[in-house]
C-alpha cells in the first residue's frame, strides 16, 4: 500500500464522518417476467450535515426511485445508502419524508394536530412534551390556528404545510422532500419555498429536495445535483454560491442566479436528449 492510497483512505474516512447521507454506487433494476427496467444506473454522492441539496432531473429520471431508496422504502439492487453512518435497510429513524401527494399522505380521519402527533405517539414521547412539540411545529408553519380542522378542509398549500409540520415535529436529522410543491399554485409555491428556507436556517436540518423545477432548485439549494434520464447517473453537481438569506424579489434577478440557472437548464436539456 502506497502512502498515496493510505492518504486517500484517511480522506475518505474523514469525509464519511461528515456525510449525513452517503449514496454509494446505487443501482436499481425493476424486474418482472416481461421486462427489465434499469431505473438507476450508477449513482454516488454524499450530502453533508446541514446542507440544503436539491436534486433535479427530467421527468422519468428515476427521482422517485432514488428517493424511495434513500428513505428505505425500496431496497437497492446494488450499492448502498448510508444515513448518519448506518446502512439503510428499513426507513431510518432520523429521516422524515414529505411526499408530493399531500392529499394522500395525511390521514383524513385525523385532525391536523392528530396527524402531526401520531408519529410522536409511536415514539412513546410523554403527552406534555408531545403537545408542546406539535404546537411548536404547527407554529413554525403558521398553522397553529387550524389544529382542530381536518386536512381535507384546508387548501392544498396548507395541507402540504401540515405534512411539513409533521416532518418537523418528528425532529429528524434529514428531511427528504419529493416534489412537494408540484401541485400547488405559483404564489403558494413561492411562500412554501421561503418557508423551507426559514425552517432550514432555524432548525439546522439536512435537506434533500427533489424537484423538476430548475428555478426552484437554484433558488433553494446550496447545491444542485442534475440527474440524467434513466438509467440515472449524475450529469452535473452545481454548487450554488448565492448568499443567504435569499428572497423571491432579489435573488431571482441576481445575475449569478441567471448563470447558475442556465447551467442547470443546459444539463437538463442534455439529459432529455439522452446524454
Amino acid at each position: 500500500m502506497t502512502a498515496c492510497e493510505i492518504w486517500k483512505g484517511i480522506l475518505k474516512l474523514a469525509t464519511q464522518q461528515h456525510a449525513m447521507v452517503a449514496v454509494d454506487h446505487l443501482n436499481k433494476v425493476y424486474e418482472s417476467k416481461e421486462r427489465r427496467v434499469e431505473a438507476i444506473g450508477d449513482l454516488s454522492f454524499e450530502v453533508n450535515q446541514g446542507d440544503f441539496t436539491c436534486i433535479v432531473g427530467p421527468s422519468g429520471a428515476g427521482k422517485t426511485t432514488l428517493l424511495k431508496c434513500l428513505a428505505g422504502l425500496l431496497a437497492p439492487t446494488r450499492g448502498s445508502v448510508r444515513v448518519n453512518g448506518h446502512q439503510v435497510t428499513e426507513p431510518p429513524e432520523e429521516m422524515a419524508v414529505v411526499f408530493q401527494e399531500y392529499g394522500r399522505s395525511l390521514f383524513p380521519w385525523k385532525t391536523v394536530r392528530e396527524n402531526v402527533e401520531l408519529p410522536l405517539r409511536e415514539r412513546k414521547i410523554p403527552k406534555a412534551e408531545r403537545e408542546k412539540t406539535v404546537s411548536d411545529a404547527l407554529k413554525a408553519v403558521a398553522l397553529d390556528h387550524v389544529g382542530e380542522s381536518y386536512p381535507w378542509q384546508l387548501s392544498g398549500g396548507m395541507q402540504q404545510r401540515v405534512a411539513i409540520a409533521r416532518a418537523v415535529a418528528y425532529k429528524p436529522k434529514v428531511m427528504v422532500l419529493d416534489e412537494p410543491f408540484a401541485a400547488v399554485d405559483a404564489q403558494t409555491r413561492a411562500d412554501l419555498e421561503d418557508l423551507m428556507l426559514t425552517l432550514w436556517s432555524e432548525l439546522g436540518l439536512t435537506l434533500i429536495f427533489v424537484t423538476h423545477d430548475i428555478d426552484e432548485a437554484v433558488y433553494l439549494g446550496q447545491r444542485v445535483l442534475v440527474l440524467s434520464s434513466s438509467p440515472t447517473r449524475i450529469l452535473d453537481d452545481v454548487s450554488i454560491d448565492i448568499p443567504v438569506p435569499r428572497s423571491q424579489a432579489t435573488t431571482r434577478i441576481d445575475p449569478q442566479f441567471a448563470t447558475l440557472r442556465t447551467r442547470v437548464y443546459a444539463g437538463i436539456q442534455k439529459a432529455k436528449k439522452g446524454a
Partner: protein
Amino acid sequence: MFNALRKLFVELALPALLFALLYIMSANSTNFYFPALSAVLKQFNLLWLGPRFAADVIPSLERLMAGYLLACIAGIAIGIPIGLYKPLRRALEPVLEFFRAIPPVAMIPLLIVNMGFGNSMKITVIVAGAIWPILLNTVEGVKAADHVLNETCQTYGIRGFARLRHFIVPSASPQIIVGMRLGLSIGIVLMVISEMFAALDGLGSAIIYFQRSYEIPQMWSGVMMLGLFGFSLSVLFRWFERWALHWYDGMRDLERHS
C-alpha cells in the same frame, strides 16, 4: 329550524299518507286474511305495547345482537389479515365465495339436530349469514388502502398494532360499514326465520303461532312490529354510521361541492 321542520315533514308525508289510505280502504274489509287496519292496530296495542314486548321482542333483540356482534367481530378480525396478505387472499377467496353462496337457512335443520332448539342454534344461523358481507367488504376495504399513506406509516415508524388502529381499520371503515349494514338486514331475516323454525319466544315464533291458530289481526300486528323493529335498528345504525364516518361524509360533501 324551519329547514329541519320542512325536512321532517317531507320525510313523514308519504308514510302518513299510505297509512291513512290503508286505514280508510281497509275499514270495511270482510276479507278474513286482510282485516281492517283498525283491528290490527287494536291487537298491536294489546300485544306489542303490552306483555308481548318483553316476552318476544326482547328475546329476539338479544339473539340478533349476540349473533350480529359476533359476526362483526369475526368478520372484521378474519377480513383484515386476508385483505393484507395477497397469498392468503389467493388461497382463501374461492372457499369464501363458496361458503357465502350457501344460504344459511339451508343449514337450520342440520343445526337443530346438532345444537337443539336453543339460542345457540339461532345465534349460529345469524352469524353464518351476517358474517359474509362484513368479511368480504373488510377484505375489499383493507385491500384498497392507499399506498402513499402506507409509505407514510413506514417512514414514520407506525407499524404493528398502531398501523392497524390508525391506518388500516379507519381507511377500510367506509367499506366495512357498508358490509355491516348489509349484515344487519341479513341478520334480521335469519333471526325471524330461525325463530319460525323452532322457538318458544321471539317475533318470528309469535308470527308463526298466530298464523297457525288463524289469529290473523294478531299476525298482522306482529308483522307490523317486525317492520318497526327493523326500522328502529336501521335508524340506530344510521346514527352509528354518521358518528363513525363523519370525516368521510365531510370529505365527500366537500368534494361534491367543489
